[in-house]
C-alpha cells in the first residue's frame, strides 16, 4: 500500500508541478469549451435575435385597417406606401435600408369576404418581400406572417384547441429533455475518455521510451502495486480533466441554449447524485485501465497515441448508444457492455427510471473489468518482451 501511494505521489507531483501540462490538460479544455460554446451561443443569438429597441422598417401597400390595428397593438410602426414605390422599396430591402414590404391586393377585405374556399379559384394573395440574409428583415417577415395567420384565423374562428396548458399528460421529461439526458452521459464519457487519451500514452509508453520504467522495475516494488499506483494517478488526472471540461460545458450551456430550462423535470436526491458519481467513476476506471494497457504495449508515446485514437471513436459510439437507449426496456445483459452501461445508467437516472439491478450490474461489471485490466497490466510489467522490446 505504501508503495502504491509513493508511486501515486510521484506521478501526481510530476503532473501538477508541470504548469504547462496542468494548463494544457486540465485548465485549457474547460476554458476552451466555455469560451467556444459561449461565443457560439452569443453568435447564434445575435444571428437570430433582433435588438429590443429596434424598430422594424415595414412598408405596406393597401393594408386594411383591421390588420393595421393588430400591428399597432404590437407597437409596430408601418410606413404606408403607394403602389408606385414598390420597386424602390424592394431595392431598399435588398440594400438593407428597409426590412419588409407587404403588398395587399386592392379591396383586400372585399376579395376575402367574397372568396369561396370550395370554388377552387386562386385565393387573394398577400406578398411579403424581405431579405433572408438580414436578421431584422427575416424576423420582421416572421412577425408579419404570424400576425397575418392570426388575422386569418380570426376570420373563421369557429373552435379553439387547448386554450390552457393542462393537457400534456406527460409528467416526466419531454422530447427535448430526453435528447439532453441522452447527450449528457455521452458528453461525460467522451470528456473522461479524452482525458484518458490525453495523459495515458505518456504515463507508461512515455516511461518506456525514456528508459525510466526499467529504473522502477529493479526496485522491490510489486508489479501489481506499480500498475495500481499508475492507474489511480491517471484516474485522478482524467477525472479532473473531465470535471474541467464538464464545468466549461455546464457554465456555457445556458449561453449556448439561449437560457432554455433544461433540467426543469430533473431532481436527483443526494444518494442518486452519489450513485451517479459512482457510475461515472466505475466507467472512468475501465477507460483508464484500458488506456493504460494500450499504453503499456506500445514502445513510444507516438505509438501509444496511434493505438489509443480509435478507442475514442468506439467510446463515442458506445456512449451515444447507451445514452439514447436510456429509459427503454432492453435485455439485462446489455449492462455488461462497458461504457454503454454507464451511459445508459446515467441517462436512466436523469429520466427518473429506477433500476437497481442494472445499476448493480453496471458498477459491478465495470469494477471487474478494471481489476482484469490491472491484472493484465501487472503481467505486462513482468513481461520483458513488452517492457524491453525494441
Amino acid at each position: 500500500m505504501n508503495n502504491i501511494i509513493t508511486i501515486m505521489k510521484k506521478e501526481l507531483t510530476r503532473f501538477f508541478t508541470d504548469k504547462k501540462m496542468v494548463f494544457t490538460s486540465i485548465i485549457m479544455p474547460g476554458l476552451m469549451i466555455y469560451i467556444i460554446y459561449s461565443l457560439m451561443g452569443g453568435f447564434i443569438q445575435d444571428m437570430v435575435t433582433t435588438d429590443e429597441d429596434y424598430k422594424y422598417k415595414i412598408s405596406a401597400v393597401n393594408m386594411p385597417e383591421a390588420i393595421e390595428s393588430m400591428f399597432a397593438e404590437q407597437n409596430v410602426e408601418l410606413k404606408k406606401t403607394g403602389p408606385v414605390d414598390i420597386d424602390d422599396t424592394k431595392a431598399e430591402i435588398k440594400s438593407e435600408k428597409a426590412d419588409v414590404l407587404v403588398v395587399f391586393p386592392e379591396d383586400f377585405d372585399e376579395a376575402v369576404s367574397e372568396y369561396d374556399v370550395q370554388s377552387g379559384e386562386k385565393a387573394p394573395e398577400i406578398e411579403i418581400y424581405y431579405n433572408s440574409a438580414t436578421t431584422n428583415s427575416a424576423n420582421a417577415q416572421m412577425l408579419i406572417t404570424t400576425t397575418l395567420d392570426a388575422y386569418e384565423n380570426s376570420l373563421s374562428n369557429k373552435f379553439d384547441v387547448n386554450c390552457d396548458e393542462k393537457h400534456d399528460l406527460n409528467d416526466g421529461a419531454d422530447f427535448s429533455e430526453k435528447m439532453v439526458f441522452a447527450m449528457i452521459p455521452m458528453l461525460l464519457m467522451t470528456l473522461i475518455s479524452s482525458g484518458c487519451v490525453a495523459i495515458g500514452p505518456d504515463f507508461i509508453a512515455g516511461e518506456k521510451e525514456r528508459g525510466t520504467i526499467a529504473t522502477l522495475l529493479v526496485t522491490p516494488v510489486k508489479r501489481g502495486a506499480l500498475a495500481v499506483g499508475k492507474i489511480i494517478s491517471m484516474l485522478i488526472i482524467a477525472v479532473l480533466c473531465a470535471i474541467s471540461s464538464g464545468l466549461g460545458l455546464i457554465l456555457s450551456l445556458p449561453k449556448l441554449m439561449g437560457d432554455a430550462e433544461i433540467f426543469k423535470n430533473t431532481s436527483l436526491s443526494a444518494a442518486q447524485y452519489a450513485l451517479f458519481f459512482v457510475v461515472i467513476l466505475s466507467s472512468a476506471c475501465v477507460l483508464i485501465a484500458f488506456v493504460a494497457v494500450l499504453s503499456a504495449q506500445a514502445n513510444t508515446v507516438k505509438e501509444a497515441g496511434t493505438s489509443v485514437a480509435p478507442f475514442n471513436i468506439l467510446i463515442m459510439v458506445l456512449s451515444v448508444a447507451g445514452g439514447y437507449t436510456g429509459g427503454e426496456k432492453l435485455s439485462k445483459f446489455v449492462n455488461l457492455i462497458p461504457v454503454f452501461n454507464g451511459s445508459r445508467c446515467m441517462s436512466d437516472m436523469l429520466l427518473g427510471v429506477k433500476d437497481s439491478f442494472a445499476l448493480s450490474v453496471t458498477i459491478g461489471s465495470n469494477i471487474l473489468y478494471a481489476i482484469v485490466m490491472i491484472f493484465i497490466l501487472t503481467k505486462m510489467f513482468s513481461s520483458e518482451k513488452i517492457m524491453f522490446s525494441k
Partner: protein
Amino acid sequence: METILEAKDLKKIYSLSKKQQKLEKSGIKKKTAVDDLSFEAYKGEVFALLGPNGAGKTTTLRIISTLIKPTSGDCIVDGVSIAEQPEEVRKKIGFLTSELKLEDYFTPNYLFDFFSKLHGVSDEDREKRKEKLFKTFGIDEFAEVKVANLSTGMKQKTSIAVSLAHDPDIIIFDEPTNGLDVITAKVVTDFLIQLRDEGKTIIVSTHIFSLVEKIADRVGIIINGKMVLCDSLKEVVKEKTLEDVFFDVYVKEVGSDE
C-alpha cells in the same frame, strides 16, 4: 571465502523479431545471448565480467538483477533464488546500467527520496545515506536541479547514488565509467574501491582493462555468452598483461579473423 552470489548454468535465448532477423542476415530465428554460464562471487570482492560488445555481459547482469528471466538456470543471491523470489533479490542488490534512466523532470534530491521509499528505507536512514552519498559525489551542489539540466557526469553520479539509496550488500554495475570524463570516471572508480573496502560485493561489467586491473579481485571473461575464463586477477595476470590474456582467449574462441 563466503559465496554470496552463485550463477548456475544461466542460459538466455532470445526469439528474434523479423527486423532483427534481417539485421542478423543469417536467417536464424533464435539467438543465445548467455550460454550455460556459471560463476560465483564472494563476499567483499570485486568480480569483473570482461568481454567484447555483444558477449552477453549486460544480459547476464540483467538476469541477476531480475530485470529479465533466464531461459534456464538460476542464480542464488545471498541465499535467495532469482527465479523464485525476484522481489527479495531486488531488495538485496543495487543495480546500475546505462539503460536505467532517471526522469528528467525531477531533482536528484526528489529521486533519492522516491527510490529510498520504494526500497522501504526509514526517513532517518535515508537522510544519513543521502548526506554521505551526496557528499561523496558532490551532488549537494546540484541536488535541486532537474535531471534534464544536468551533465552526463552529474546524471551518472545521481544514478549511482539513487541505485545505492538502500545500502545494498551486493552492487551490480554495468559499464560504470562508460561515457564519463576522466575526473568523474576517477570519482566513480575510487568509490567502487571504497565500497569494496566497506565489505560490499561488487559485480562489474566492462571492457576497460585498466579499470579491471585497478579494482577487481577476480575476473571472468565472457565471449559469445560463455564464461571462457574465470579466476583471480592475480592468477590471470601472472605471466601476461590482462589485455594479452584477453586477446589470447578471444582468438582461441572466435578466431583471428573476427
